C-alpha cells in the first residue's frame, strides 16, 4: 500500500502557506501559484496516514484505551497533564493521596511507553520511520484538542488549564 491513503489529516501535518500578495500580480505569477499549489499537493500526498492500522498499532491503542479509564480521574484533578511532546506527565502530585502516587507514576510511565511506541509504529507502518517526530507533534496537538475542559496541557510558558 502507498502511504497517504487518508487525505483528511493532511492539512494538520503540512499546513499550506498561501501568500495573498500573489493575487495582486499578473497572470504569470498566478500560474506559478497554481504550480506551487500543485507542488504542495504532491508533497501532501507523501504525508503520513495517522489512521493507519496494523496489529501492533491496534494492540497499543487497546492498551491505551484500557488505561484511559484509570487516568481520566487524574487528568480531571490536574494531577496529570498533557505535555508538548505528545506524552503525559505528573503535574501536581499533591492532588493524589500519598498511597496512590507510586501508582500514578507507574501509569504515566506505562502510558508514555505506549505513546512512544504508537508514534514509532505509525511512522514505521507508513514506511517512513523518520516521520516519527512529525507524527508525535501532530498527536500532541490532537490530544490537547480532544482534552476535556478543566484538564491541563503544556504550552510554551508552562501548564495551562483548558
Amino acid at each position, binding site marked *: 500500500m502507498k502511504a497517504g491513503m487518508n487525505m483528511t489529516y493532511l492539512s494538520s501535518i503540512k499546513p499550506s502557506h498561501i501568500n495573498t500578495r500573489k493575487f495582486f500580480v499578473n497572470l504569470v505569477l498566478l500560474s506559478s501559484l497554481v504550480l506551487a499549489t500543485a507542488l504542495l499537493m504532491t508533497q501532501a500526498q507523501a504525508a503520513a496516514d495517522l489512521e493507519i492500522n*496494523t496489529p501492533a498499532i491496534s494492540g497499543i491503542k487497546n492498551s491505551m484505551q484500557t488505561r484511559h479509564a484509570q487516568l481520566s480521574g487524574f487528568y480531571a484533578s490536574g494531577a496529570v497533564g498533557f505535555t508538548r511532546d505528545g506524552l503525559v506527565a505528573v503535574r501536581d*502530585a499533591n492532588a493524589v493521596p*500519598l498511597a496512590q502516587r*507510586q501508582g500514578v*507514576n507507574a501509569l504515566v510511565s*506505562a502510558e508514555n511507553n505506549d505513546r512512544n511506541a504508537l508514534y514509532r509504529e505509525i511512522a514505521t507502518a507508513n514506511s517512513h520511520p523518520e516521520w516519527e517526530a512529525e507524527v508525535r507533534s501532530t498527536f500532541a496537538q490532537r490530544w490537547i484538542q480532544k482534552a476535556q475542559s478543566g484538564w491541563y496541557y503544556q504550552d510554551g510558558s508552562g501548564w495551562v488549564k483548558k
Partner: protein
Amino acid sequence: MLSRLLCTGIFCLSFAHPALALSSISIEAATVETADTQLRNLRAEVKLPAADYLQLHLAGEIKSAADSSQAPAPDHVKSEAGHSWQAASLDCAALVQKNLAAGQQEWQCAKGLLNLQGAKLPFSLSLQQQNPGYQLALQLQGASFSDAAGSHAAENLHLQATLNLKPDVAAPAKAAPAKSAQAQARPGWQWQLGLDWQQGELYWQPWYIASGGHTLQASGHYAGDTLSVTQAALNLDKVGQASASGLWQGGKIQTLHVDAPDLALAPLYSLLLQPMLADSALNKLELAGQAGLSLHIEHGEPVSALLSLKQVDMEDQQGRFALYKLNAHIPWEYDAARQVQLNYAGGHLLKIPLGETSVLAELNRYSLTTPQLYLPILDGALSLTDVSATQAGGQWHWHLRANLVPISMPALSHALGWPRMEGKVAAAIPMVTYSAGNLTTNGDLLFQMFNGNILVKGLRMQTPLGSAARLQANLEMQRLDLGDLTRTFSFGAIEGKLDGAVNHLELSNWQPVAFDADFHSSPGKYRKKISQRAVENISALGGAGAVAAIQRSVLRFFDEFNYADLGWRCQLRNDICSMSGVEYSGPGYVIVKGSGVPAITVMGYNHKVGWSDLITRLKRVTEGNSSPVIK
C-alpha cells in the same frame, strides 16, 4: 531549616531570661540573614502564664537563598514557591527550664508546633545539657510535610528521635586511633542516634512507605566535614535487619560496610526494589523467599559484594517468565574473579518450560563468562557455550554459541498452546549476540516437522521482554507434508508436499506487520489430492465471490480431486495482504490448478485482503472444521 529555627528560638529565650518578673516580652527584628537563609518581620513573644513555665511564639517570613531543594521542580513551580517569602512560625505551649545537679540544665518544650510552607510539625522536645555534652529527645506527633511538587511528602508521621552528643576528650589517648588523625586536629563529637518510626506514611519519590515499625540505632564520631559511623543497626518492619558502618567525608562516602544476611524478598521488593526497577523487565514480580546482601566500599569505590538468594520463587505478573526454587550465590570482587553459582528447580520463559538447571560461571569485575550453560527444556535442552557477558555504559552486551538439543514438537506445541504437532525442533547457532536490547543470531534454527524442514534464518529481536518487542526473520519451508499440515490445523484435507518461504518477516508485539510469503507445491512426483472441504475452505477464505472453483457442478459428485500445482503468495504491508497464486489467469489468479480426472481449479479474484479479516476467516474455517485428529 528546622535546626536553624530551633536554634533561633533558644537564642531568644536565653535573651529573655533575666526579665522573668515581667508577664510578657516581645522582640522584633526587621531582617536576619545567614549564609543560605533570609528572615524578615521576625517577632518573638514570650508569655509567663505561671511561674514554672513560659509560652513561646516565634513568627516571621523566611526565604531560602540557595534554593537547591527546589531545583528539580519545573520552572513555573519554582517561580511560584521557590524564591518567595514564606510565612513560618514556631510555637511552644509549655517551655520549662530545669536546673539539674552540678550546673546541668534541661529545656523542655511540650506541645510545640513548627509551621512552614507545606509543613506542619507538631512536636515535643527536650534538650538536656550534660557535663559534658547534650542529650536531645524529639518526638514528632502527627507531622506532615510536602514539597511544592508533591514528590517528597509525609502524613501523620509519629517519630521518636534521641541524640546524644559528647565532645571529644582533650587527651589524645582517648581519641580514636589512626584513621581519625584529621578529627584530632579539630574538636569533634561522639554521637549516638536512635530513631523510631512509630507510624505514618512517607512518599519519597520513587519510594512509598505505608506504615511505621522501622528503627535505626547508630553511633559514631563527627568532626568538621567527617562523619564516621562506628555501627548502625537498621530494622525494617517485615523485611529484616541490616547492619552498617562507614565514613562520610567531604560530601562523599569513603567507606561503607553493609551486611544484611537475611531479608524477606517479597516485602523488600515492594518497599525498595520495585520502584528502582520500574523500567526493567523485573518491574512486576510476585516474589517469595529470602535474600542476603553485603557490600564493601573502600576509598569511595565498591571493592566487594555478595548477593545470595535462598529458595526464591519469582513470577512475572504478565506471565512472561518465572523461576522456581531459585538459589544463587553471587560473590563479586573488584580485584579478583569469583565463582557464581545459581540453580533453579524449574520455570518458564515466554511459555516455554525450563527444567531443573544448575549454573556455574565466573564473574570478573564487570564481565561474566562460562564455558557451558545447559538449560533443560522439555525433553531437549538449550546448550549455550562460550558465554561471555559484559556490562559497559550501563548496558549489558553478551555473545554465545547456542545449540538446541532436539525438543519434540508434541510437547512444545502443547506448552505453547498450539495445535498438536508432530516432529522436533533443533538448532545450531554459531553466534548469538545481545547488545543494548538487540538480539541477533548468526545461524539457523531448524524445525523438523510435518515430515519436512522449516528453517528460521537471520533471527533478530529487539527488547524481547519489553512492551514493544520486535522480531525479524526469514523462514524457509522444504517439502512439508500437506496431509500432516491440514490435519494439524483442522483444514480440509490436502495431500501433497509444500515448499515455501516467508521473507522479511517482521513481528511487532508478536503480531505480523510485514512479510513476503510464497507457498507452492514442491517439485517432484508424489500423490496430489485435494478434498471437497479444502476447496470450500479456500473459497471461504477469499470472502464471498472472491474465489470460485471452476467446474463447480462437479464438486457435488466427488470427495477429492486431482491437482497439478497449488500456490499462494501474500505480501503483507500495512495490514493489507496483496495476494496472488500459481499463475495469473484473466482478471484473477490460479490457487489450485487442476489436472487429470476428476480435476478442479480454484481461482482467486480478490487481489487485496485485510490481514485481520483473513485471520478472522481462517479461525472461523479451522474452528468450524475442528474434529479429532486421526493418526
